[in-house]
């Protein structure tokens, strides 16, 4: 596990409940994300993984509980100020804007802190984005869209990135590439919260796993115990 900053997590979630209208989707979710650490939420579809990320970004219609980023209470922070606490979001559907070119997509999220990557560094990390900087965002392949969705967050200077199923629907060689990028980011000290169904991918980057079912966190364990937990995971996740 990465270094622990005085024992206090960079992202701390306690007793988080969330709702879509009448539907109660999160039940007392608690998790800790230490600075520089990568954790992965696993669970079957509808377990509440995406809802957890959306609740942290304040994108759920209703949420209750506690969320702290770097000690700061996030529950009263409006949506458009949440990112300014140093947190970036890469949604499952990637959210590449069709009416914006690749470079407009890249430049879209405002800088929230110093220390983000420069456009040159980003194009070095993702050379194929550089080649296609003037094409419309949605003319990219799925893998390129995923890379763009990650790349645009790297510019903003955030310390925490929430990634929702970054490998979904992608070819193995692209998954490999995204894995390399995430490992690179970890080396630079980035803190990552990953939702992932692909255990083989997740074990390469994650320090710990949280297992979710029906909007609850069932348990948390370090990656070293992944093999021992595989039977239980297959039972809960059903993969």
């Amino acid at each position: 596990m990465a270094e622990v900053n005085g024992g206090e997590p960079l992202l701390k979630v306690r007793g988080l409940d969330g709702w879509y209208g009448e539907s109660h989707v999160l039940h007392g979710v608690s998790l800790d994300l230490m600075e520089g650490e990568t954790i992965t939420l696993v669970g079957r579809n509808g377990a509440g993984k995406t809802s957890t990320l959306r609740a942290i970004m304040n994108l759920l219609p209703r949420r209750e509980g506690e969320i702290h980023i770097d000690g700061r209470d996030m529950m009263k922070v409006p949506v458009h100020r949440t990112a300014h606490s140093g947190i970036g979001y890469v949604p499952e559907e990637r959210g590449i804007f069709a009416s914006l070119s690749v470079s407009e997509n890249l430049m879209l999220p405002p800088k929230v802190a110093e220390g983000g990557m420069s456009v040159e560094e980003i194009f070095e990390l993702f050379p194929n984005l550089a080649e296609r900087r003037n094409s419309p965002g949605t003319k990219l392949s799925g893998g390129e869209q995923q890379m763009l969705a990650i790349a645009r967050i790297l510019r903003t200077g955030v310390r925490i990135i929430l990634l929702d199923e970054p490998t979904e629907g992608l070819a193995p060689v692209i998954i490999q590439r995204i894995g390399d990028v995430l490992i690179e980011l970890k080396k630079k000290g980035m803190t990552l919260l990953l939702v992932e169904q692909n255990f083989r991918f997740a074990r390469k980057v994650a320090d710990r796993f949280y297992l979710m079912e029906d909007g609850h966190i069932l348990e948390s364990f370090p990656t070293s115990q992944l093999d021992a937990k595989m039977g239980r995971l297959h039972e809960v996740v059903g993969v």
Partner: protein
Amino acid sequence: MTMIFGIPLPALLGQLLIGFINGSFYALLSLGLAVIFGLLRVINFAHGAQYMLGAFAAYLLLVHTGLGFWPALIVAPLVVGAISAIIERTMLSRLYDLDHLYGLLFTFGLALIIEGTFRWYFGAAGQPYAGPALLAGGTNLGFMFLPNYRGFVVVASIVICLTVWLLIEKTRLGAYLRAATENPQLVQAFGVNVPLLLTLTYALGAGLAGLAGVLAAPIYQVSPLMGSNLIIIVFAVVVVGGMGSIGGAIVTGYVLGILEGLTKVFYPEASNIVVFVIMAVVLMLRPAGLFGKEI
């Protein structure tokens, strides 16, 4: 005399020019409507009233403060934009979560209230408004006598339309607008104040209507119902161009203005309905409009 299809050339060119001038107003107004609809998904029925407010702001500035056309060209759109921003923040923004019809009903009611108030206060008759002295007189183009002011309106509207188009297509703010049109929640999650963006957009669209109103004041006089007469045609323009398409609204505005002018030459009886006939045909063949995308 040169004849084209049995029409004297000067008459043809004259009507073309008049069509171009009318088209300038169609383009300015449909541009504002398209900007508002694109981001807010509100069909702004108050657009005609905001156009009228712009004209009245210029008129009242002249009567009460002595400020003439040029200062009014700046001040009146700002006033209309500011009033509209307050209306958006206090009232219209509460309707975004409801069916889009409520936005339409609200702005329709708002237009009736604004126009009714002005009619009660000023009567239905038009007030004359003097154009700028600098642009008095006209130029003989050979085929017609063009009042300088009308030439100015054509040029001004092209410049304004191009500026707004560049603002939306080429700037960072415009990228926020386009992105928020597609996925406002994600743009907000990136740290952009989308509610503020919506307010500014509504103010921009309404301010454009106000600007068109000032430009129209010396040509059409200032009257409480000047907007409601025009807005129906402008809605047809937006439908033909495609809802939410900025470039489409501009181009369609000019083209329909010119087509209307030509109809006056070739078949004057149809000139009042030609825009609506085109709208009906376009709706049958391309329901999303000439430049629109399915939404």
